[in-house]
Every structure is written in structure tokens, then in C-alpha cells.
């Protein structure tokens, strides 16, 4: 049995080690960082999609989040600007550095959790769920996006490691809905995000808020959202190609191949940054994190 003194030393070591890793992550470009317990996935993710399915012996999951578009980009009246330029992958860069330092300095295995889809839209592990379990945000009514209390929309990456770290926990206080949204829902039957993209008018979102001001129900049509958030890219390329190949009129086929739509689809495949996020309308009207986007 360990002595009380040894326990105290070990706990300080665990706490300080966790703090070191977190500070390193913030210095590497993350805006927020948290650590989740791999066992927490058991309640929320099916087998095959949990940290230990990716790295055996996983003891911690370090999750980082970083901002996407600049505050100025949110103000642009040209929606295409954020579509082409809204993402700089700083969260991925930060998590790679975290994984590197855990392996080189702490001698434990560490990998970047695979967040890109490998079968249709499905990734091996959900970065959004990772963010929730690491206490970095809660799932919202707006396309189930995870909203951070300070920054709102962030992009997340995770590092699965055999290094033991101190865990954070899911936030107790829901970030969404914001008080303003509770009021607009009670008065007008819609939150701003639902109003911006209403399911009953060909949009993606619907839901309700209960008497306590919490999400009561939510509806999100992901495939319609794909037509907007992945307007140009792999999806539109495949769909356009199907139409091109089926076209018998050679002139019409040539016009389809050289159309702006197909050109944009090809471009979004080549410049992967153009393919990441191509609709921000529900987030544009979201009050969470707005203070961070209010500049001069």
C-alpha cells in the first residue's frame, strides 16, 4: 500500500504533468485544451469507434480546439470567402506537436486520433464527441455543432495516448441554448439558428427548448447540410460526374465538364482547405462566442 506521502507526490506529478501538456498545447496553437477519460466513450460511442479501438492501452485523450475564420471573415458579405479560406488546420498542427512531445519527452505512445471520414461520412473516431467528453463544449441545436462557452465554434483534434493524465469532465452547464435564444424561442418559436435554416422550409434544423431553458428535442438533416457545408468537393464532384458521364450530347458534355460548378468541385478537391466548411449560416447568427468576434 502506498504511503500518504507517496500518494501526494504521485498526485502532484499527475497534476503538474497534465498542466505541462496543456500549456504546451496552448503554446502550440490551440485555443482550448482538455483531457478526456477513454472509458467515457463507452456510454456514447459504439464499439469500433472508441479510443482503445484505435490505440490499445489508451489511458488519456488530449483534445484541442482552435478557431477557424477570423472575426473579419465573419463580417464579409461574400459567403465564398469563408468557404475558400475559413480554416487553417491549427488544431491538427497543435495536436501533432502534442503527440510528438508526449512520445519524445514522456516516453509514452501517442497518436493523432483519426478524425477524417473513412466510410462515407463516418470517421473512425468522433472529434466532436471527444470535445464534449474533454469538457470543451456541449452539443448545440445548430447542426449538432459543439459550442465552446467562450469561443463558440471551434475545430477539434485529439491525441490518444498511453500517458496517464488528469481528466476533465463534461461541462455541467449547457452552452446552448444561450439566454437570448431561450427568449427568442419562447416568443417566436425559433432560435436564430433554426430561423436561419428552418427544416420546414428546405433547411436543416429544428428543435425545441424546455421550461428550464435546456434543449428538449433537436432535428438535423445532415445530408441537406452536406449540400451546403460541402457544397463543392467530393460530393458535388461525384454527383456532377454521374451526370457528365450519362450525357450523350458531346457539346453539352463539354459544357458540363468546363462549367463553373464542376470547376469549383475540382478545385475544392485539390485545395483541401476549400473543402472543409462551406456553410456558416447557423453559426453566423449564433450569439455564443460573439463577444470574441466583436472588434474594431
Amino acid at each position, binding site marked *: 500500500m502506498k504511503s500518504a506521502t507517496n500518494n501526494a507526490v504521485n498526485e502532484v506529478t499527475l497534476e503538474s504533468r497534465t498542466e505541462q501538456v496543456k500549456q504546451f498545447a496552448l503554446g502550440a496553437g490551440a485555443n482550448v485544451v482538455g483531457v478526456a477519460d477513454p472509458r467515457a466513450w463507452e456510454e456514447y460511442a459504439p464499439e469500433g469507434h472508441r479510443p482503445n479501438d484505435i490505440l490499445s492501452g489508451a489511458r488519456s485523450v488530449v483534445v484541442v480546439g482552435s478557431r477557424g475564420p477570423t472575426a473579419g471573415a465573419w463580417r464579409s458579405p*461574400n459567403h465564398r470567402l469563408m468557404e*475558400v479560406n475559413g480554416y487553417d488546420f491549427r488544431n491538427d498542427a497543435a495536436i501533432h506537436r502534442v503527440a510528438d512531445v508526449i512520445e519524445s519527452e514522456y516516453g509514452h505512445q501517442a497518436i493523432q486520433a483519426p478524425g477524417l471520414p473513412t466510410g462515407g461520412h463516418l470517421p473512425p473516431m468522433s472529434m466532436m464527441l471527444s470535445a464534449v467528453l474533454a469538457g470543451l463544449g456541449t452539443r448545440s441545436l445548430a447542426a449538432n455543432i459543439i459550442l465552446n462557452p467562450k469561443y463558440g465554434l471551434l475545430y477539434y483534434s485529439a491525441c490518444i495516448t498511453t500517458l496517464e493524465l488528469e481528466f476533465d469532465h463534461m461541462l455541467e452547464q449547457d452552452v446552448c441554448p444561450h439566454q437570448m435564444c431561450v427568449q427568442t424561442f419562447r416568443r417566436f418559436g425559433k432560435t436564430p439558428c433554426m430561423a436561419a435554416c428552418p427544416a420546414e422550409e428546405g433547411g436543416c434544423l429544428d428543435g425545441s427548448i424546455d421550461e428550464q431553458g435546456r434543449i428538449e428535442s433537436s432535428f438535423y438533416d445532415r445530408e441537406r447540410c452536406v449540400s451546403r457545408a460541402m457544397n463543392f468537393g467530393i460530393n458535388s464532384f461525384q454527383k456532377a460526374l454521374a451526370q457528365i458521364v450519362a450525357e450523350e450530347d458531346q457539346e453539352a458534355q463539354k459544357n458540363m465538364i468546363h462549367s463553373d460548378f464542376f*470547376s469549383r468541385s475540382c*478545385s475544392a478537391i*485539390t485545395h483541401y482547405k476549400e473543402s472543409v466548411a462551406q456553410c456558416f449560416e447557423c453559426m453566423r447568427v449564433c450569439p455564443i462566442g460573439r*463577444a*470574441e468576434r466583436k*472588434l474594431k
Partner: protein
Amino acid sequence: MKSPKKHDFDETDFARAKAEIGGIAKQSGALVWGVAAADAFDDAPEGRRPFDLLPKAEGVLVVGGAQPRAGDWQSPNYQHMEVTTTSDRIHGLALKLARVVEDRYGYYAVCVPPGVDHGQQPFMSIAMAADLAGCGSKSLAGPVLHPEYGFMYFGAIVTTMPLPADSPPGTPACPAPECVEMYSAEGLTPCTRVCPIESGGCLGGRIEGGRIVERQYDQARCATRVQNYWVPGFQKVLGETLREKDSEKQKMMLYSSMFSRTLWSMTYSNVSQGQCAECMRVCPLGRAHRTRQ
């Protein structure tokens, strides 16, 4: 509740703030930098001016650099630069500076995308911004050239921060004295000789009194060279392949080096951007910086 003030600088001393930002740009790898006034873009079409990207824009911060290296220009293998030249590094720097402007100084900043908007149109001419910011001047060959460094890539950040603006260079860098001399002797400059428009190339022009008075540029032909294997090349090859009725021949086309190259170029577009640099290879501007052992 508003966030506490993020920055702590003297808001009456924008010249100093500008110098600080320029210092960060230089430390981060920029060769040149400058600021263009947002209201100086009269020659830009409507919809493509700084205010169209960011309401209440005051200026456009321009950074230049990420040139091909001296050794790159010397390679006798033309394919070498097809797969190594990129504006990605300077765009990354521009993104970083946009964050600095917002996080440190509290003003809005938008990084101008180097890609294109609908209809293959740029969001805003970064070349025009570079000229107006004093980072170089438009050349006969097309790219904005710096008098000392010659050809480089540029990034631009539109901002509401009222940084003191620079001016376009008084004397354009192009044509260089050597080019004026060559033109008076032969009626050609190095760039128009290597890619003459009257012989299936892209460039032509006239020089009088040491200045460009006429310029001819076949943009569509230039695209077949600069974007040799990229999306336009892919689209052309796709069209040809789909038209082929013989399935054996069609397979040959699908597996061809041409088709494969277009796919490589598309996949690795971050390093396969400028696929023809022949006009710049012979340009005398910046030559001193392209000379090594």
C-alpha cells in the same frame, strides 16, 4: 458581458503598430511588406475591392516572399519547378498576420484567399494590392516584380486597422535597364523572346522612353502552361477520355501519364501551383539573389 481588452497599444501611434506588424512579418519570413489604402483600388472591378470583402476596411496589408530558390532556377529539368513552386508558405504567413492584427490589436482582418470565387475570378487582385502597397510593380510578363528581389509570391490581408498607407513605386521596376537596351536592339525583351505571342506564346509588348506603352498577354494560353496539369488539364483530358468509344483506348487514356499527372497535380496542389516560370527564369530583376555557388 464583453471580453476584456486584448491588446495594449497606443491607439494614437498606428505608425508604430505598423512597424511592429512589419517586424513580425519579416521575422516570420516575409521579404517585403507594405500597406495599401483601401480606397485606392479604383481600377478594381466592383465586387472585387477591399470593402466588398470587409465592410469599413481601412487598408490592405501585403506581404511578399517564398520565392523559388537560386538552385530552383538553375535546374535544367523544367519539371522540377512544376512540382515545387507554391504560394502556400506566404499564404500561411498572411493568415498568421491576420490573427496578429485581430488578437493583438483588436481590429478586423480578413486574409484574401489566393483561390478564386465564382467564374474563376479572384476575390480581389493581390497583384494590384502589392503594387499599391509599394511591394513591386506590374511587369510586361504579368507578375508584380520587386526592383531588388524580382519575382515572388504575395499574400494580402484586408483590415479595419487604419495603418498608414504606402505608395506605389515611383518608377516601375519593369522594364529593367537591360531589357530596355535589348528592346532597342532587337525589338524584344527576354520574356517576350522566350514566350512570343506571335509564335504561339503568351507575351508581347512595346517599350518607349523606358516604359511599357503596350502589353499583349494571351491569358488562355498562359493557363495551359501555368496550370498545365491542374484542374483545366484534368477537365480537358476527362472530356477526351469520355468521348473515346474504344474501351481499350479509353483505358490507355485513363492510365496515361498525362491523366495521372493531372491527378497528382490536383492532389498535391499545395506544391504544384506555378507550372511554368520560363518568362521569370530569364527576367533580370532579382538576378543577384539567384546567384549562388
